[in-house]
């Protein structure tokens, strides 16, 4: 065709955006992948692309039925739980209602909300189950969460200084984050964060830190504040005003309904917090420096996702209740593949990691939670200073021990 309008130049590198290099590799590969050649990394990238292509080619009716069944189950539980809470004057009803709503909220946030908002089900082109229309049962609005999570966290996974999920601007979660006396509060902050996790995330999604540094325009902050306030008000009204009021009118169970709603939110918050902290903070999940991502190829990007994430081992029910975030490694390599397919992908990824000599971190929930908490406590304390020049002479140890050493190779 005859091009009459402005000819466009491609490959313009936008500042601050990762453009994957077609060939080569970063100047510095992460320690765990330092033994791989550029060709090997490229081959690994091709193997993972092939897995992705295969899953995409076989997505279909069965998967669609799966997500619809989960949504149906979740809505039934939610409805049954809320109706039961209306009669929660009786202890049995209070316990049963709270349990049902807790499970409903967990499924809604994790297996449905998180994954739908990732666009895992967009391929169905169903506007009822679509990343652009979904709103979840969580105080943080879908729109702001999608930005900080999908766009920032999944792009910059574990790059200290870039991925704010490393500590959520609240906790010191990596040796490379400078220690300040504020870090002494690490365990306390985390303890408070646990039961109020959704509020923590809502505040985190406002990106106050970025705004303070001038990276986020005030207009955007105002827009996000408005969205969040509206959403939070609705969420708060449902659990703490409307349901108790209805329960009071129906059976004078207002007080217990309030307790039930609060308990359900807390249970969901504690669970979500535990699962999410197991994703990147247990021993073995690496963090990266900005130097390590410069010149990253597709293969390098996959490697960063694999060695920066940690899985949780367990039963099918366990995987389901974590929203398949127990397959964190698979999720990070392929964030937009349907979650019900991660289990089959995991078998292959594990084999690939073994073949390429890459760590594949996984463990049962209690151990992963313990390790994440151990890190929270350990990093509350100032680092034991080594004289600067000895850092480079120290042999780089793999960071799998109970007390990992910062693998800063500059």
């Amino acid at each position, binding site marked *: 065709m005859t091009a009459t309008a402005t000819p466009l130049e491609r490959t313009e590198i936008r500042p601050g955006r990762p453009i994957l290099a077609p060939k080569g590799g970063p100047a510095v590969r992460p320690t765990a992948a330092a033994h791989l050649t550029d060709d090997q990394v490229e081959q690994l990238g091709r193997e993972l692309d092939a897995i992705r292509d295969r899953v995409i080619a076989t997505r279909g009716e069965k998967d669609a039925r799966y997500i619809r069944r989960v949504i149906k189950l979740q809505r039934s539980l*939610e409805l049954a739980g809320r109706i039961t809470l209306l009669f929660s004057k009786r202890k049995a009803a209070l316990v049963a209602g709270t349990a049902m709503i807790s499970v409903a909220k967990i499924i809604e946030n994790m297996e449905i909300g998180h994954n739908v908002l990732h666009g895992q089900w967009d391929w169905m082109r169903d506007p009822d189950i679509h990343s652009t229309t979904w709103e979840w*049962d969580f105080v943080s609005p879908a729109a702001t969460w999608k930005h900080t999570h999908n766009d920032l966290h999944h792009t910059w996974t574990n790059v200290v200084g870039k991925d704010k999920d490393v500590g959520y601007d609240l906790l010191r979660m990596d040796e490379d984050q400078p220690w300040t006396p504020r870090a002494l509060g690490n365990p306390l902050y985390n303890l408070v964060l646990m039961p109020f996790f959704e509020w923590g995330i809502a505040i985190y999604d406002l990106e106050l830190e970025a705004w303070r540094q001038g990276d986020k325009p005030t207009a955007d902050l105002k827009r996000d504040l408005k969205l969040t306030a509206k959403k939070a008000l609705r969420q708060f009204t449902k659990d703490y005003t409307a349901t108790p009021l209805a329960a009071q009118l129906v059976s004078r169970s207002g007080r217990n309904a309030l307790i039930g709603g609060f308990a359900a939110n807390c249970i969901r918050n504690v669970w979500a917090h535990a699962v999410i902290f197991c994703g990147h903070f247990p021993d073995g999940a690496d963090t990266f420096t900005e130097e390590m991502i410069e010149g990253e190829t597709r293969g390098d990007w996959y490697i960063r996702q694999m060695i920066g994430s940690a899985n949780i081992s367990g039963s099918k029910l366990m995987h389901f209740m974590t929203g398949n975030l127990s397959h964190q490694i698979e999720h990070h390599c392929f964030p937009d593949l349907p979650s019900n397919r991660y289990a089959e992908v995991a078998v292959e990824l594990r084999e690939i990691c073994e073949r390429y000599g890459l760590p594949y971190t996984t463990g049962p929930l209690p151990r992963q939670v313990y390790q994440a908490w151990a890190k929270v406590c350990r990093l509350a304390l100032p680092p034991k200073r080594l004289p600067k020049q000895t850092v480079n002479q120290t042999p780089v140890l793999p960071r799998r021990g109970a007390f990992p050493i910062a693998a800063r190779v500059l």
Partner: protein
Amino acid sequence: MVRIPALRRMASLLLTPLEPEDVLSLVNPLSSHRQLRGVVTKVTRETPESRTIHFRPGRGWNPHDAGQWARIGVEIDGVRHWRSYSLSAPAGADPAITVTAIGFVSTELVRRTKVGDILFLDVPQGDFVLPQHPRPLLMLTAGSGLTPVMSMIRTLVPRRPDADVVLVHSARTRDDALFHDELLELADQFPGLKVVHWFTREAQGRRLDLTDATDLETVCPDWRGRAAYACGPADFLDAATALWDRAAAEGAAEATTALTIERFAPVLLPGAGGEGGRVTFEKSDKVVDAPGDCTLLDAGEQAGVVMPSGCRMGICRSCLTPLVAGQVRDLRTGEVHGEEGELIQTCINAAAGPVHLDI
């Protein structure tokens, strides 16, 4: 309960972020606040390759006028596909579409649809409808182009004693002819309908030749005095349009010669390939020629369009933008794809021929 606004608001307070319809959909598959749906009530075989699918639409559907069409969404292997179909049922009756197994979606509809299936719907639309005042009519149809006209005939002929309709329908064979027996019965029963079947593949069969008026004069000598409606394949309609234009130009005395046509193949933008194409950002009113390796996102941004974007590598889907027309090439796989209404990841797709985006 959803019909009473105050109750709906209260229910919504208890269910947020869900809407009452989301919960009602547990028991009523037609319930949705986002997407009009219908349930299939009857499937009738018309010819070996075509079926009439009757459905009961949910709340929000508008009754159709005879001759109108509706967008029908159907799920095939988990993926929603939309096509436009003329409604073949008479006005006032529950809607029905008559589908012939041509193309992927129609073939699936013909082969798979069963009673109880859910169809996704958009309200009826279209200007291919009966004239407001009674007048003699000529219907020229070919193949499945008969469907909207069938709705008109079913609406008009049994109800209006003053109806005067001539239908000239072209089909390959008698077995392929839609509504064959029903039309003959109607013609038998009502003097206001005359039916001419034109079979192209039966003995001595040939195509209805519209390059001049000869064939038309034979089957309907007073064609110039009738308001004409035509529906069929593109070449059939082009020939009819040319014929009527000529008749109008010749200024024949009785030439009232109004011809109304209905195309049922979507007008696709021509051209596809690795050469890129002209990208039109409709809401932003910007046009840019983009090379084949330039993402739509880059093209939009450089044209000054406010494009949503996120990871710019095909992961986060922050950049999804509806495609209005044309096709795009996935720069990761080289696959050329694109359907009207599909949400496109602009950060990894380039133009494959002319593209229109709804932004």
